[in-house]
């Protein structure tokens, strides 16, 4: 073994590099957490001083008034997405994980997988454009609930399918083998054992998906329209408002009231979405033991 003659002089440089690396890691953590906190706190401190609880219970008048119609509209959109995209996405995920596999257990079902991947890469504004051109104008549906729901669902179905698929893949093989050993039919075992133990993962995916849907703006601007009235039960021809619209339009209106509306809508959005994400996280944390090969 040779002794490195240059060993000593290089050590100082290495020490500096090591220290630089340490600064770099701490610094980058600061640069991520700092702006993020700044953002959330920034929205909260601008909304809270002017906060009136009546915002929750009065209708909007465009650039002033309350946000009741937008809150209910956002909840309706989230719920509709949960029904439409949830059904399609979960079933697609089950299909991709359980049935679209070859004998050796390798992923199969090429077309559907590619379609899901491609759809998840589609820019949301392009989907919104298609909704406007084809559904609102082409089919004469007008700005209304159904085109908005269909476009939002197109956006989040890939996400739900992916999260369902990976939740099902994490079900321990033992569970499936055990179910088979007990003589359960494949379908019964799927329902009672596999899907049941993957349920927390599936629910988490659904919660995150509706939080994505609730926070979207671009695909809704040209499909949902806007109204100062409460959502109606009709799917077509009646516009529906949503919270992100007020954030998007009211911040650069001239009046102070409009700015207040904008930040109020932002605060309500932050609270809603953080609540959904925290709940989904709690579900994950409480049910990690089911996962195969969990950390």
């Amino acid at each position, binding site marked *: 073994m040779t002794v490195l003659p240059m060993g000593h002089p290089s050590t100082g440089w290495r*020490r500096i*590099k090591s220290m630089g*690396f340490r600064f770099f*890691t701490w*610094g*980058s*953590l600061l*640069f*991520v*957490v700092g702006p*993020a906190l*700044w*953002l*959330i706190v920034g*929205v909260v401190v601008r909304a809270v001083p002017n906060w009136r609880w009546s915002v929750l219970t009065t209708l909007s008048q465009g650039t002033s008034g309350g946000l009741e119609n937008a809150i209910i509209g956002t909840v309706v959109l989230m719920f509709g997405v949960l029904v439409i995209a949830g059904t399609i*996405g979960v*079933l*697609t995920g089950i*299909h*991709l994980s*359980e*049935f679209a596999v070859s004998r050796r257990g390798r992923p199969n*079902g090429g*077309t*559907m997988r590619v379609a899901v991947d*491609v759809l*998840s*890469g*589609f*820019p*949301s*504004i*392009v*989907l919104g454009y298609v909704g*406007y*051109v*084809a559904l609102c104008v082409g089919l004469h549906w007008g700005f209304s609930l159904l085109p908005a729901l269909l476009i939002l669902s*197109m956006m989040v*179905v890939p996400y739900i*399918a*992916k*999260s369902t698929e990976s939740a099902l893949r994490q079900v321990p093989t033992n569970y499936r083998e055990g179910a088979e050993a007990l003589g359960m*039919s494949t*379908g019964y075992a799927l329902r009672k054992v596999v899907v049941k133990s993957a349920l927390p993962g599936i629910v988490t995916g659904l919660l995150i998906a509706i939080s994505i849907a*609730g*926070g979207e*703006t*671009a695909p809704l*601007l040209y499909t949902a329209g806007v109204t100062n009235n409460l959502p109606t039960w009709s799917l077509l021809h009646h516009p529906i408002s949503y919270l*992100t619209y007020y*954030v*998007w339009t009211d*911040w650069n209106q001239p009046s102070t009231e409009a700015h207040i509306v904008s930040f109020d809508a*932002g605060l309500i959005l*932050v609270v809603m*979405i*953080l609540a959904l*994400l*925290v709940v989904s*996280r709690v579900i994950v944390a409480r049910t990690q033991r089911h996962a195969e090969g969990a950390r």
Partner: protein
Amino acid sequence: MTISPTSVDPTRRGSAPRRVGHFVRRHEERVWRTSGRIASLIPVAALLFVVVVLAVKAWPAIKVNGFGFLTSTAWLPGNTYGGVEHVHGVMIPAGARYGAWPLIAGTLQTSAIAIVIALPISIGTAFALTERLPRWIAQPVGFFVEILAGIPSVLIGLWGVLVLGPFLAHDVYPIVATHVPNIPVLRYFAGSVGYGEGLLTSGLVLGLMIVPIIASTTRDLFLQVPPLPKEGAEALGMTDAEVARRVTIPWVRSGIIGATVLGLGRALGETIAVAMVSGSVLGTVSPNIYGTMTTIAATIVSQLDSAATDGTGFAVATLAEAGLLLAVISIAVNLFARAIIRRTSRMSAPVGRA
């Protein structure tokens, strides 16, 4: 009250609902299989629908605008109330000329800035989360970074245009702009800094939006690196920086590349936040890094309203062409990323809609 014969007949146990249950149980697998197959065909159909609509809508614009669309900088809606021209059999308003080069340039520039900023910061954050912070605090901080991916982009745009942009334009950009030396690359950082709406601010905001995607994936990858090679490298006398550079990062390099390209896909397609902080100026490529600009996605969202007033429908068709262009770019990027991720690690791409 009479007792129906069937309910006491010992050979025919079970009421109608139970018989339905029995039927479902017998054919359950087929039910799952069929409904799964039907459901998974819906995304395929939806995709075809979207692509066909885009292509049909864009076709007249492709015919008229030709290849010049990719290189021209004009964005002239023409005379909406005046005469009509016929070009290649398509009716367009007199004088309408469209070129997407500023939009393409803006999209690529902002995404490039976002990646250049986000990649090192994400790797540093991932190291801090896995190796620096104690576990009890690393977990909540890691969760915080993850939920950052879920913050609505309209709020990030709001903060970017009202808080971050003015702060940077007032306190940071002038210092940089007056101190950069006048040499070829850095000259791009000199000049007028504007009011905080523009290229660099958009890139920074996009960077903040894609950091969670890259950082949380990279953290998960770092946790998968087995400890023995790292300990071995340390036993050979490497410093932690050398272990990181020579062992940890090479071990998961392709996963990091995959996550980065996924983040790039999101940055390319991001609409609302960029529309709010870019300044939305059509028709010019920014002369320096602070200038106002726009991207393909931001243009679609800000121009569709006025495009709908074009009686010939040509403006809407042109936006379809722009959307098709954006879709092609971001889908190519996305598929590339997913191919890398699928090949190199067993996890599915996890974070947010990307």
